[in-house]
């Protein structure tokens, strides 16, 4: 009888939980990287990198006991660049194999920053790099990467300066061989552009732009453009782009209404005066024009690339974001002010179509086939009444028909804040996949009609991304690791759970395998 009663109880009903414990780091990081061979997931507490595949396989990538801190996928979708931290102990005592043992023995600990190239779950190349690097820019062919410091995303207070740190260098990495070359380019280089045929790299740093030759493998400077003749002037590039022919580098400067057009062939600078400092700039290759918008001016500027003439057009509201699709620019505002306009501008005819959103836009994405855009909208407080009041109080999703001549759009109110958006279908995208915060459903949104279908999820979602050939992954709010794989062709949802358990019982940090500085 007792046995029968025990059997009737769920084994999970008697989990003793009287004690409370706080882990010093999350078991997994929801910002995962989708490569061709699987999803790569950082396990911060264990200091590991896991590869998770849709069939439920979980592999731990051997990084020589170095702890991954940032993952960046190369354009080939196969090479993963992994920034790591590696603890080393300055001792000849081979019995010491953890950080804690090294400390107990009063030996010197050293934290080394590294960059590893991982392909198919295997660390193929590891190089010691300076601690401050945190960003990568890839050449158009994906064969060369430039590693640099992105000040905007860097955690500058936690960079360990070991000896001397040189902020005037970037590192060029040949991805097929793993060879890394340090190249001096100027203080705080934070933007790199590649010419269309990948024979030159344009590196922007403070008050200086240098062009690096990529054809010989020596990475020599071809030319250097000073952005100011006065060393007291601190000129910080904001946005930068190359013209489609690769001849000119265009850059805007923080707090300045001047646009620099650097002629990479004649090695000269043309300065174009604008009415204000642009908040965003983008180039349409098809229209061969550059578009600029201003956060405090209801204006859009269009720059042609032959004589660098600027045409200004008045808008009803300021815009601070640009999305380019073929010969059109979508202008919108995510500033937090109560801006409701989204403008589609034809860059050849300069015709502007206005879409009026119910609520201010927080994000906008254009579907791969360019027929629709989806805008996510936040709540607002305007004192409106009736249905407008209801719309103001709710988050929203708007489907913009980019073929409409009248700003046609479908505006939907959302139960909770949208936390993920992806487009299903590749070349012909008729469906958007939408996730709402705290709602255990994947919404398949019909972009033609605004109707939707729900696919049940095992837990509340955190984000969505695509990988491979029209497949999707959904991360969930689950401490032990939970990812769903959505196959739209088969309409199947597979779930992989518990992948974040590795090293949960480890209470010491292993020393890393040494590599050369």
């Amino acid at each position, binding site marked *: 009888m007792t046995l029968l009663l025990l059997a009737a109880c769920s084994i999970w009903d008697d*989990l003793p939980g009287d004690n409370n414990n706080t882990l010093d780091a999350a078991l997994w990081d929801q910002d995962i990287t989708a490569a061709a061979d699987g999803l790569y997931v950082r396990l911060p507490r264990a200091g590991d990198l896991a590869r998770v595949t849709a069939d439920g396989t979980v592999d731990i990538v051997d990084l020589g006991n170095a702890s991954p801190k940032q993952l960046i996928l190369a354009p080939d979708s196969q090479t993963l660049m992994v920034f790591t931290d590696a603890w080393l102990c300055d001792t000849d005592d081979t019995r010491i194999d953890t950080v804690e043992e090294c400390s107990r023995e009063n030996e010197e600990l050293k934290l080394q920053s590294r960059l590893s190239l991982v392909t198919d779950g295997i660390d193929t190349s590891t190089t010691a790099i300076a601690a401050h690097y945190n960003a990568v820019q890839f050449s158009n062919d994906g064969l060369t990467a430039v590693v640099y410091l992105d000040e905007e995303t860097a955690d500058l207070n936690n960079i360990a300066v070991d000896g001397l740190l040189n902020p005037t260098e970037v590192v060029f990495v040949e991805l097929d061989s793993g060879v890394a070359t340090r190249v001096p380019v100027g203080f705080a280089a934070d933007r790199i552009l590649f010419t269309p045929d990948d024979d030159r790299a344009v590196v922007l740093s403070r008050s200086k732009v240098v062009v690096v030759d990529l054809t010989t493998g020596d990475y020599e400077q071809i030319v250097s453009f000073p952005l100011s003749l006065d060393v007291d002037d601190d000129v910080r590039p904001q946005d930068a782009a190359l013209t489609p022919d690769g001849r000119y580098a265009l850059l805007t400067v923080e707090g300045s209404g001047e646009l620099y057009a650097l002629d990479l062939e004649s090695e000269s600078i043309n300065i174009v005066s604008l009415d204000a400092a642009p908040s965003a700039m983008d180039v349409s290759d098809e229209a061969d024009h550059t578009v600029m918008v201003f956060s405090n001016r209801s204006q859009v500027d269009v720059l042609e690339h032959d004589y660098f003439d600027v045409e200004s057009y008045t808008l009803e509201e300021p815009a601070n974001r640009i999305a380019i699709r073929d010969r059109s620019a979508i202008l919108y505002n995510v500033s937090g002010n109560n801006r409701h306009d989204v403008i589609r501008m034809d860059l050849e005819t300069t015709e502007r179509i206005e879409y009026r959103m119910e609520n201010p836009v927080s994000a906008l994405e254009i579907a791969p086939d360019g027929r629709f855009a989806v805008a996510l909208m936040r709540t607002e407080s305007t004192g409106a009444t009736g249905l407008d009041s209801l719309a103001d109080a709710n988050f929203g999703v708007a489907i913009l028909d980019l073929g409409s001549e009248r700003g046609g759009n479908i505006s939907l109110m959302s139960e909770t804040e949208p936390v993920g958006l992806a487009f299903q279908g590749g070349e012909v995208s008729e469906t958007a996949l939408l996730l709402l915060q705290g709602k255990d459903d994947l919404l398949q949104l019909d972009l033609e009609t605004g109707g939707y279908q729900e696919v049940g999820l095992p837990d509340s979602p955190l984000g969505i991304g695509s990988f491979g050939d029209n497949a999707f992954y959904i991360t969930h709010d689950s401490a032990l690791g939970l990812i769903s794989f959505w196959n739209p062709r088969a309409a199947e949802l597979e779930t992989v759970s518990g992948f974040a358990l590795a090293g949960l019982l480890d209470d010491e940090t292993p020393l890393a395998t040494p590599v050369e500085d």
Partner: protein
Amino acid sequence: MTLLLLSSLASAADLEVNLEVGRLDIAKGYWDLFDYNNVQATYGVRADWHKSSRLGFSASYAHFVTGAHNSVWDYWEYDEGGSEDSPGAAEGFDAAFRGHVVGLGVRGGVDLWGWFNPYATLEARGLHAVVRLDDDTSDDDNPNQITVRGTTVGAVAAAGMDIRIPTKYRWAFSHNLEIGYEIMAPLNIDPLGALAVRGLHVRAGFGVRF
């Protein structure tokens, strides 16, 4: 049948059955996942066959269970504005550890005054661990209801004393207390990692000898 077996053994030697309380030391590994106290109390039963007053054999089983609710404190994310962004940070997860300890031992001792029996014992032990993890205990169907297991072996060397009263009957109440040292091979619980079980061994029992 069991009674017949026991009575036949009893005719040749004494049998003793004890309910016991013991301790187990988790010397290495992140035990905070289950309990802040690295010393766990075990509860079990031990049967001894006293072949003579000097030599005996024992078989024992003990059990312990503990658990904790784990939350996540991500220092780096907190520094950037909150640890609530970590997956599962709001709910955390529960972790439970159930240990089954079995032992087979031999003991040698001397009889003093008929009721006091100091002894030394050497016991081979096995520990089978069942770990359960659940990040949403309110939902019986959530995917992350995880059970993993591990087994290890080890040994205990201890000295103890056995007291039995009254002495004039064929049965007696028995009480024993032993202290020694326990060591086990690493307890591997894949993929979580390993625990090391070793340290002071203390065990006390109360039962019947007949």
